[in-house]
């Protein structure tokens, strides 16, 4: 039994490994070390010569490379055929996917084909045992798949005692991207694509495609000025941009602010948006619902600006400024410039 950890690596529009996949390799590396198994990556796409070098600093032992012009852009059937077959062939025990539009399209199809469990949108992955009293059996070294459930009101730990592999999807930004010393003997296995896909895997075709490279990178920002429904209008969001400019930060938003049209979806922070952990998070007119906190409560410092001193966010903020966004932000900008000269 090989029992290794596999990461499905997504390819971005410009031909690189997606950040979310590198983050998963970092997590996979730690899990593999704990379990004393290997970390293996599946990369499927076209023109992938440079990919091994990109993955090397993340501690990958083996890369399974399916390089074929028909395999980029992503299509469900050919990718699921390859992934399902590789997982069975090489007896993967844990398989991780990004919780992206690709990962969430692919992973359930693969899980169904392999008749195994899949946990979506995990916020934490750990290794642990499970004891069943009734049969007095202990399952060793299971993957604890921890995720918010029920609209974020609870946190559930999911396990797959019997049916393996254990599969999970994780959103971008949840795991930390960390490089390690590259493995000396990293192996690259080129897949003979025709053995894994058939003609019928191409019954769905792409007839038009318009994908833009992500414009904002709130995940990488050290300082985030985030606005909620309390900001009141798209115009008032301009104040957030001014403050973010002054502080060299980025602007984020709550779902209520996105739904109200104050900001675009790509800036949404929280359970169904991105997870951030900046040095400083300035929450402007955000109440601090659990689903929002899930994406920002690991920020090193939190300042909240809210008219309500008892808003839930006040429990996790380091500084609670009681006041309106309209009044406080211009003052913050003014005194930042005055004091930083």
């Amino acid at each position, binding site marked *: 039994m090989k029992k290794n950890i596999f990461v499905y690596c997504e390819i971005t529009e410009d031909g690189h490994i997606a950040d979310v996949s590198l983050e998963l390799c970092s997590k996979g590396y730690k899990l593999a070390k704990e379990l004393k198994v290997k970390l293996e990556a599946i990369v499927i796409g076209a023109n992938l010569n440079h990919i091994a070098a990109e993955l090397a600093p993340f501690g990958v032992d083996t890369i399974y490379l399916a390089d074929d012009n028909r395999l980029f852009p992503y299509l*469900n059937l050919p990718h699921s055929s390859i992934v399902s077959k590789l997982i069975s062939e090489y007896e993967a025990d844990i398989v991780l996917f990004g919780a992206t539009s690709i990962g969430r399209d692919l992973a*359930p199809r693969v899980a*169904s084909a392999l008749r195994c469990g899949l946990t979506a949108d995990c916020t934490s992955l750990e290794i642990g045992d499970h004891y069943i009293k009734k049969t007095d059996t202990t399952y060793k070294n299971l993957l604890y798949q921890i995720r918010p459930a029920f609209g974020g009101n609870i946190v559930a*730990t999911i*396990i*797959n005692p019997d049916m393996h592999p254990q599969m999970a999807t994780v959103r971008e930004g949840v795991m930390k991207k960390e490089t390690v010393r590259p493995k000396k003997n990293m192996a690259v296995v080129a897949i003979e694509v025709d053995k894994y896909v058939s003609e019928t895997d191409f019954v*769905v075709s792409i007839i038009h495609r318009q994908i833009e490279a992500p414009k904002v990178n709130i995940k990488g920002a050290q300082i985030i000025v985030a606005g909620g429904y309390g900001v009141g209008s798209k115009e008032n969001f301009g104040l957030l941009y001014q403050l973010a400019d002054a502080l060299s930060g980025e602007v984020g938003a709550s779902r209520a602010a996105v739904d109200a049209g104050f900001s675009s979806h790509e800036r949404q922070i929280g359970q169904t948006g991105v997870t951030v952990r900046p*040095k400083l998070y300035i929450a402007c007119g955000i109440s601090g619902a659990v689903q929002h906190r899930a994406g920002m409560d690991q920020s090193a410092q939190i300042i909240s600006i809210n008219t309500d001193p008892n808003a839930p966010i006040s429990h996790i*903020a380091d500084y609670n400024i009681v006041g309106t966004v309209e009044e406080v932000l211009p003052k913050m900008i003014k005194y930042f410039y005055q004091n930083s000269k």
Partner: protein
Amino acid sequence: MSFRILVLAKQVPDTRNVGKDAMKSDGTVNRGALPAIFNPEDLNALEFALRVKDQREDAEILIITMGPPRAAEIIREGIYRGADSGVLITDRKFAGSDTLATSYALSLAIKKLAPFDLVIAGRQAIDGDTAQVGPQAAEKVGIPQITYAEEFMGFHGDKIQVKRRLEHGVEILESACPVLITVNSSAAPCRMRNAKRLMKYKYAKTEIELQELNEDYLQMFESRPYLKLKQWSVDDLKADVSLLGLSGSPTKVKAIQNVVFTQKESMTMGASDAEINKLMKSLISSHILG
């Protein structure tokens, strides 16, 4: 031969109104404690189906829902909005199913309704937020899938064209039928109930519901067969029980925790010039800013 569209729709607890007793100790949802609603994205799925039907005279829409007897409400609601009929899949043996077991049961119902041309599901259900059942049902039935659908773009010969909404853009895919499509909340909202259909179908009932009714009703059903809603059990589906319910579900809930606030030591302050000035100074001197 009609063009048959199957819509997978789920009755879900309204997770926007969650109280304390919403979860049972075994980690499953206590559905009784919450108002039950039509899963929001399944309404988008129904509208998608109705738009296909708007273009194809010969289209017929059937709702498939799996759940407790009261989930029959979903079929009636779907019919009021324009679906033709539906099937309720209900059996105690389904209780505790995870997405794999659920998709197995749904796939048997889909195959039993063959021949069909489209299967349309919501992207995800708000009780689990997994978005897994659609793709898993497609795999089990052995048909391709198109997820994140936002718009029905029409037919090109006998192929369907669908616009998908992805994180950073859009894609138009073309597929032969049958294909399973999962629909996003960004797609068109579902049309309202039709008053005439409401009058005509409000007495539509499943077998279980019929048992609670009196003689007069039963007579009405004899004369109006369209009021009878199909109801299928594990036996009707010839399902392998070992693949259903808790035993057929690879995922188990090990533990459940309520989300608790970890109280931080925090400072509450006003918005005066002096206070903001002091704050900015201290942030700069501690190198958090600048």
